[in-house]
């Protein structure tokens, strides 16, 4: 077997020509062979394909004929007589295996061979080999699965075959075209849980299959019994928590909320084959839709999608029927009219018209690339859809994450693209996915902070709103560890993404207030608890920033990012988001900015102080109007702190009386180091960040002057100087001076 597989794999590489495509369709429409072989020969002539290609095609044809013979052989069953039986059987098995691993099998072939495998015509070794190569070319028809399940009842196959069959079902779940009839057999599958050997796999299968209506009290009871009997198995736990999710009232026992992977992916025997199937399903890829609203935006994407991306292409059941158009029956037409498939969906009005009969793709991952379907799963409150999506997402994230696969780090680009798509979908829906949260928990400790940095940090910024102190040890402490030992660029991007995170949380909270759905949130926290969480996040960023500035020797570049966080988000929370919260920056940031050598930093600081002032006065006003003190973060301490900062700033920049209160500096020290006029040395004229402005202001007036005396700027000239500063673009300074300083007090 191994050698056969090897051969298959090696011959897989050149399989990119048009011919293999036509061959595939041929395989699919096996019963319509005549028609298609005609079309194939025409296409061969039409394309003037190179010699190797046609040779390849010939080889394929031969293999195909052999496959048909093999399938017929299996269908008829073993002949008792001949001694060469084993040889023939082996030959045919090898044929099936090689074709299956190379190109996959058509639905009809799977149908036949699946029957053979489960009917017990051959020995269990043959059955298991057959099952292992039940790899679809594109899709598996639901009826084949139902038929196969019916064989399980006859009891002709042994335990190991059953186990393998369930594992196959789990692996191929996404490729089964419909699940309605299979779902009707839910009771049967559920009964199979009693078999100890089958239980884990049946659990996994049920986990994928369960819909809300399947959750019944007697099933819950049975599951709890099983758990009592078998102990806390992760698979039972998974199914129970799914049941609880669908119907929380049915299950009163508390299940520990574990962010865990319940099922082992390493048990997937068909991993490489699945990638190939996904790739195949993608080849006639329609251009992915741009994630935007409205019909005008459905434009083909310019950039070609990477060789093969991890996200499956929209592919619902009607897709497979397209191949055999001739054989389509009236009932097919009728049923097609009822269901509107994802591929047909091209515009928003279409979505609205067909929202009642929309058929979702058989592979949930495909919705990530389709804005309209994202709309759909967002508004139709079907938990099973979301669960399927989340399940698919967590599995793919786990399997493809590059720092889990040491040998496979070449696929970094692919993984990056995948993350990009997820982030795009998250941006589009304006919310994070649960699976990404779990992924972050699990992979952050192993992350090196470099590969996929931008994507990974963006995932952090879409972290769903939660209690900060609860997630801190898992996310933010680990991030801090990376933060302090990484480069300044890493620090800047972390700050940038934490800013995004804060914005997402604030938006979520402000929406929450308007909709009055605080109780609806899964957190079940009180409003003040949520505010506390935001406060802690801001505090955390303040802590990070202060220390980062020390580590990076007060880099101006970094300080820009730090101040940006406060300028864009923190200082305006009260006014912009209507949330009762004002958090000031820590002194370590304030004094650094105030004493900075960079005029744009000083300007930014002035602007932030101005915005803080507006927010605080607005809060105070509301307090007076409503005649009740806001219970949240508006302690008098915040005002005191603000006033303290303000006094320091005005003292330095304007009145030339720096640091009067809580004097930090001993005047004697200044005398000793020879700075006699230390008092004026931080005002608007002498401040190191503004001194160059003062000089060019004077030079503008007296261009001939060789020595200028900046101390001459006072009185009327001071005002002119101010106007000059404002005209140079120091708008923050302007706003600050206009709002915080009474103009009569010109020094």
């Amino acid at each position, binding site marked *: 077997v191994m050698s056969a597989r090897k051969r298959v794999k090696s011959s897989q590489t050149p399989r990119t020509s048009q011919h293999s495509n036509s061959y595939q369709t041929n395989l699919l429409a096996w019963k319509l062979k005549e028609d298609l072989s005609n079309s194939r020969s025409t296409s061969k002539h039409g394309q003037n394909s190179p010699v190797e290609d046609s040779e390849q095609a010939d080889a394929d044809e031969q293999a195909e004929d052999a496959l048909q013979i093999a399938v017929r052989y299996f269908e008829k069953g073993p002949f008792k007589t001949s001694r060469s039986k084993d040889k023939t059987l082996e030959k045919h098995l090898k044929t099936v295996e090689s074709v299956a691993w190379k190109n996959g099998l058509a639905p009809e072939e799977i149908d036949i061979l699946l029957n053979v495998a489960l009917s017990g015509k051959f020995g269990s070794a043959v059955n298991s080999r057959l099952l292992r190569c039940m790899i679809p070319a594109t899709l598996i028809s639901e009826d084949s699965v139902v038929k196969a399940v019916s064989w399980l009842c006859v009891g002709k196959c042994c335990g190991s075959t059953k186990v393998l069959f369930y594992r196959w079902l789990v692996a191929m779940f996404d490729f089964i075209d419909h699940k309605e009839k299979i779902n009707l057999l839910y009771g049967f599958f559920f009964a199979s849980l009693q078999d100890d050997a089958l239980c884990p796999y049946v659990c996994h299968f049920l986990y994928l299959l369960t819909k809300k209506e399947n959750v019944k009290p007697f099933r819950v009871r049975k599951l709890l019994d099983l758990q009592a009997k078998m102990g806390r198995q992760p698979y039972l736990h998974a199914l129970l928590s799914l049941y609880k999710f669908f119907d929380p009232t049915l299950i009163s026992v508390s299940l520990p909320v*574990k*962010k*865990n992977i319940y099922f082992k992916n*390493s048990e997937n025997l068909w991993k490489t084959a699945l990638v190939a199937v996904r790739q195949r399903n993608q080849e006639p890829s329609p251009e992915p839709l741009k994630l935007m609203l409205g019909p005008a935006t459905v434009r083909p994407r310019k950039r070609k999608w990477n060789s093969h991306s991890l996200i499956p292409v929209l592919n619902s059941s009607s897709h497979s029927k397209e191949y055999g158009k001739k054989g389509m029956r009236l009932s097919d037409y009728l049923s097609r009219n009822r269901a509107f498939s994802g591929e047909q969906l091209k515009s928003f009005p279409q979505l609205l018209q067909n929202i009642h009969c929309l058929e979702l793709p058989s592979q949930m991952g495909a919705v990530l690339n389709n804005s309209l379907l994202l709309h759909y799963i967002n508004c139709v409150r079907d938990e099973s859809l979301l669960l399927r999506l989340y399940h698919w997402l967590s599995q793919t994230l786990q399997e493809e994450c590059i*720092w*889990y*696969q*040491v040998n496979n*780090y070449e696929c970094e680009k692919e993984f990056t693209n995948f993350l990009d798509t997820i982030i795009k979908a998250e941006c589009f829906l304006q919310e994070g996915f649960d699976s990404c949260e779990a992924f972050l*928990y*699990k992979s952050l*400790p*192993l992350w*090196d*902070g*470099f*590969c996929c940095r931008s994507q990974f940090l963006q995932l952090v910024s879409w972290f769903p709103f939660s209690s900060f102190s609860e997630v*801190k*040890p*898992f996310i933010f*402490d*680990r991030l*801090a*560890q990376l933060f*302090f*030992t*990484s*480069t300044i660029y890493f620090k800047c991007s972390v700050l940038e993404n934490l800013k995004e995170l804060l914005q997402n949380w604030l938006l979520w909270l402000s929406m929450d207030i308007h909709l009055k759905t605080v109780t609806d949130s899964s957190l079940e926290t009180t409003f003040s608890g949520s505010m506390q969480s935001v406060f802690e996040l801001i505090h955390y960023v303040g802590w990070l920033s202060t*220390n980062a500035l*020390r*580590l990076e*020797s007060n880099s101006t570049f970094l300080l820009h990012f730090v101040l940006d966080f406060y300028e864009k988000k923190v200082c305006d929370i009260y006014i912009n988001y209507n949330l009762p919260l004002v958090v000031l920056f820590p002194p370590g940031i304030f004094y650094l900015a105030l004493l900075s050598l960079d005029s744009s930093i000083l300007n930014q600081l002035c602007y932030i102080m101005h915005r803080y002032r507006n927010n605080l006065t607005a809060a105070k006003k509301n307090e007076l109007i409503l005649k009740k003190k806001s219970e949240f973060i508006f302690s008098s301490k915040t005002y005191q702190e603000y006033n303290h900062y303000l006094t320091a700033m005005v003292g330095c920049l304007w009145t030339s009386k720096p640091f009067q209160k809580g004097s930090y500096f001993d005047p004697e020290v200044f005398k000793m180091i020879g700075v006699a006029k230390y008092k004026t040395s931080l005002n608007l004229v002498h401040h190191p960040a503004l001194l160059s402005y003062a000089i060019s202001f004077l030079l503008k007036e007296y261009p001939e002057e060789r020595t200028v005396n900046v101390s001459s700027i006072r009185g009327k000239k001071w005002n002119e100087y101010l106007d000059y500063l404002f005209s140079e673009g120091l708008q923050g300074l302007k706003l600050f001076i206009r709002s915080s300083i009474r103009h009569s007090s010109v020094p």
Partner: protein
Amino acid sequence: MSVLRPQDQLPGLNAATILLVGKEDALLQPLADSMLKEDCASTLRVHLAHSLPLPSDVNRPRIDLIVFVVNLHSKYSLQNVEESLRHVDATFFLGKVGFLVTGAGRDSHCSVHRNSVLKLAQAYRSPLLFCDLEVEGFRVTMAQRLVRMLQICAGHVPGISALNLLSLMRSSENPCLEDL
């Protein structure tokens, strides 16, 4: 001089010395090379040792940072580190020791559970870093991070001491990975 002490020797001028302790030469050597390639104002010295104690008769510079490398794929590796730790003076644990865990990416190959290393690092109050040293990209990033830590531990970053960095790196109470 069987026990290593941070203050046994005077610091060399502009020199920063790291000691990597671990059995896997095939992993440590490339890591050392990557570190030496880093652009850095201090004069870097990387010493490799299979285990502690170090031979006492050799003249060596002051060691500013010890990093114990644990390979999760080998039980012996953890054992070796645990035994070597006995030969390190307590004052070293004021920020001049780190644990580097390699091989965590491939769960199936692990013969040592991540939690046992986590507990070790917690017991010694020292930071724990994860990196699969076999992958070049990851190794280079880790080398970069180690050089930054080393510079701080050697006192070459003004205003920050090793103990200071340790307090920044040490999260409140690291929960076990099992609870994730």
